[in-house]
């Protein structure tokens, strides 16, 4: 499974939605994530990709869309 597919699987689990937003669509504006789901999303990304996301990188903009998450995850691997 490629990184984007793995991110979408996590997003579906965290958001409890079956639909998938466009890769560049804001996950916040489209209602897939809110402030309290975001930390859960980050935790799941750390587990799935075996990475440690430092506090300094906990900027909501880095996790704004599937494409941005993909870029970030790939930068950490």
């Amino acid at each position, binding site marked *: 499974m490629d990184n984007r597919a793995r991110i979408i699987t996590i997003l579906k689990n965290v958001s409890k939605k079956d639909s998938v937003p466009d890769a560049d669509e804001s996950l*916040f504006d489209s209602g897939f994530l*809110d*402030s*309290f789901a*975001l*930390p*859960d999303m*980050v*935790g799941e990304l750390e587990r799935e990709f075996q990475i440690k996301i430092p*506090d*300094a990188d*906990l*900027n*909501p903009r880095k996790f704004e869309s599937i494409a941005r998450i993909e870029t970030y995850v790939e930068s950490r691997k």
Partner: protein
Amino acid sequence: MSVLKAFGAYLPARIVPNQELGAKLNRTPEWILDVSGIEERRFAAPDETVADMAVAAARACLDRAGLAASDIGMFLVASGSAERRFPGPATTVASRLGATGAPALDLPMASAGGLVGMALAAQLTAAYGNILVVASEKMSAVVTREPMEQGVAILFGDGAGACIISPGDGPARIVDSVLHSDGAFAEDLRLEFEAPLAMNGRSVIMQASRKIPGAISELLERNRQPASAIKIFLMHQANQNLINGVARALAVPACMFYSNIRGYGNTSSASMLIAASEWWQAHGPCPGDLICFAAFGAGFHWGAMLVEISR
């Protein structure tokens, strides 16, 4: 060694339910409850000040401790919503309690102020004797300023909490504490003069969700205690969803975290001391109990404190 002697709290009389606030913000009471866990909050009277509420909480605390203001060697007063730039409310509070001469210092901090005051006091009792820590907030004066921002206005309430920390032995021994700050996020939660409270809610929640469990884990690991050994977590009452998230992160049930946010909202620096005062009165610790305090707030400042009840 330092011990917790007593707690006190004051809540203003006026109850502001979600219905009243929601009507102004075009939101339903149910939506406010869902996103925050808050059903109502208290607002101070127009002429009621941060110092007024602080004095009321401090008097309740002194009464419970059986102490007079003259027995206090230092006053630490935390507030992020004090009415003026200087002097802060600390000297007014000490003076109105009848103290003369003892140092009365302000901690111009928001939500972490109560915890920071307690942690500092625990280190200073050997030099100053009994230390009265008070945290008081009139957040209504901030959040009801027009234009009201709904993400902020629904959260906050007014109130004050207090505790006395004393040197020597006693039933509630302060075992250890950790404090941290990180100014990289200072812009994400701030209150400028004559401006509305500015909050990047997503950043605040992301950082708090990571840093509060981190501080608690650091404290508990250092003292070789699992989170499951804690009798009660007395945490800053920021948002019920955040409290639940911290419990999940520590792998303990949310019922191990005392919560009164449903009735008072987020009273910033005062909230943890109000929660502690209520829990102490309603439940009270038993011999051998471990109690963990934790807070996070603008700055960002965050930390945790461990207290053990003597067997």
